[in-house]
């Protein structure tokens, strides 16, 4: 397999604080890659740099060999890298279906002149079909007309993923998708992730739920205080002394 997404010597400083420090790892195409570490390790900051929300202080992000660091978020998205947010970030005032429709912005780019004349019926139909497909996939089809802000926490997490999935991404960056879900929902969601992987979507996953991480990931990168700590398959990481040390030193423990 080829190196699809590569992070090279990535560094992010906020004033005096180095949130991510010279981090490097590679994500293989079609894999589920975990990124773990204690609270404040710099996982979200890494996501923010990959997705273009932050410009790295130093280092590069390579997608299919192209340096995408410093691009704007929508430019990164248009190259196929789509993210979700750690805190349920949704269009709370819009309906569930409208949320998913915004997700179809890239495959069905709106055209204002066609819209005024009414020549975009096919696109609108296509966009709605895709939006509904994404909602069905995440088990939200029956909630299409609800206001997104009124959904339960678990459903909101799922909707965040549906919005990302609706855009036909190549890579999805998921920031703690399982928080707020009960074990049943988590298990179900893990099944959906495996199906996404079968569809050829590469997943980069930040999660504190170790059972989920260990059950899903092909490769796991562990970081602590912004620095690379260890990398390997689930069994390697589970037994890695440095990882255990980091988690015992921190608040959470490896399950």
């Amino acid at each position, binding site marked *: 397999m080829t190196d699809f997404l590569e992070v090279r010597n990535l560094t992010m400083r906020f004033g005096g604080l180095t949130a991510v420090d010279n981090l490097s790892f590679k994500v293989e195409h079609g894999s589920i890659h975990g990124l773990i570490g204690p609270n404040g390790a710099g996982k979200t900051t890494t996501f923010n740099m990959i*997705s273009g*929300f932050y410009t790295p202080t130093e280092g590069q992000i390579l997608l299919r060999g192209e340096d995408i660091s410093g691009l*704007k*978020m*929508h430019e990164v*998205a*248009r190259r196929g890298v*789509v*993210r*979700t*947010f750690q805190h349920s*970030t*949704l*269009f*709370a*005032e*819009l309906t569930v279906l*409208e949320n998913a*429709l*915004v*997700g179809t*912005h*890239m495959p*069905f780019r*709106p*055209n*204002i002149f066609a*819209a*005024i004349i*009414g020549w*975009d019926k096919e*696109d*609108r139909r296509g*966009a709605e079909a895709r939006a509904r497909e994404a909602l069905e996939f995440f088990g939200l089809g029956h909630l299409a007309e609800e206001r997104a802000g009124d959904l339960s926490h678990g459903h909101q997490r799922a909707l965040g993923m549906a*919005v*990302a999935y609706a*855009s036909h991404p190549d890579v999805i960056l998921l920031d703690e998708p399982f928080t707020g879900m009960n074990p049943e929902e988590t298990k179900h969601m893990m099944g959906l992730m495996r199906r996404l992987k079968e569809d050829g979507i590469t997943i980069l996953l930040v999660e504190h739920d170790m059972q989920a991480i260990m059950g899903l990931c092909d490769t796991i990168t562990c970081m602590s205080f912004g620095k690379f700590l260890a990398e390997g398959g689930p069994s390697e990481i589970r037994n890695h002394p440095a990882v255990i040390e980091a988690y015992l030193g921190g608040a959470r423990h490896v399950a």
Partner: protein
Amino acid sequence: MRNFLILLVGLAALIALPHGLSFSQQEILVFLVINVLLVTSYRLLTLTGEWSLGHVVIMGVGAYSSALYTKELGVYVPVSMLLGAVTAALLAVLLSFPLFRMKGFYFLIGSFAAGEIIRLIWKRFREPFGGVRGISGIDPMPDFSVGFYQFDFFEPVSYYYFAGAIVIACLWILWRIEKSPVGLTFHAVHWQDKLAQASGVNLRAYRTLAFAIASGFAGLAGALQGHYVGTVNPNSFDIEVMVFVLTWAIVGGTATFYGPILGCIVLTVLNEIVLREMGLEQARPLIYGAIMILSILFLPNGLESLVQKATRRKTTAKPEEKAAT
């Protein structure tokens, strides 16, 4: 079918409306129609979450440029009106470069400053803007006939029909935009710009698009007004007028398409009938300010929320009727 009938009756009412009114009331009606376009275009901008204090000045840009195109270049009036609208839209694209570095409150202040600079330019340069006194003797819309009706633009009724037809067409376009995927994207940019951007939306492009469209239609409203009144000057587009537009939008509510229109109509009627009759015309800014504050306090969702309540009661009542039969 039923909607079509309602539309037909509404149209007939709009056509019959000026005939029951006095000459001065007919003139007010012309301004009302133009202001409906102004406030509806303003709402399109607010869809993306930005509130501007320069919208009325942009309207003035449409009025000034259309006046100048006819005066200096001899352009045919209806064409110059369109060109005035285009000029306002293009200026908005230019202004977007400094203005969209700011958001929210700073955008508000920035747009005010930009508007004041434009007004200063009008005042400062007597060539071609006419300085403080502005431009007068603007070409009126030339009369024409459409067979069954003879447009005589000395009559406010004729201009009401002319402007009304244009405004309805513009409202239709603005409505189509809002109900389209473009409109949805405007909402998305407003409610959660980060998520919109992560979905591939170019924020700058969409903010600029909304600003340019809103400005274009405001410019057209300005041109319609300029060729009707015959004069434009910097003071006809000052902050006081902007406060009126804000008041219409806030009192009417901006959550629906019809909210600002409702606000504009209700306050104009109130203003013209109540204030003018009572001789309180001078106190208009004061009273408008009071109305704005009262409506924020007691009707935070605007007049539209009353309409929504009334219609919702009807629609929720309907299923029960069906169940009963």
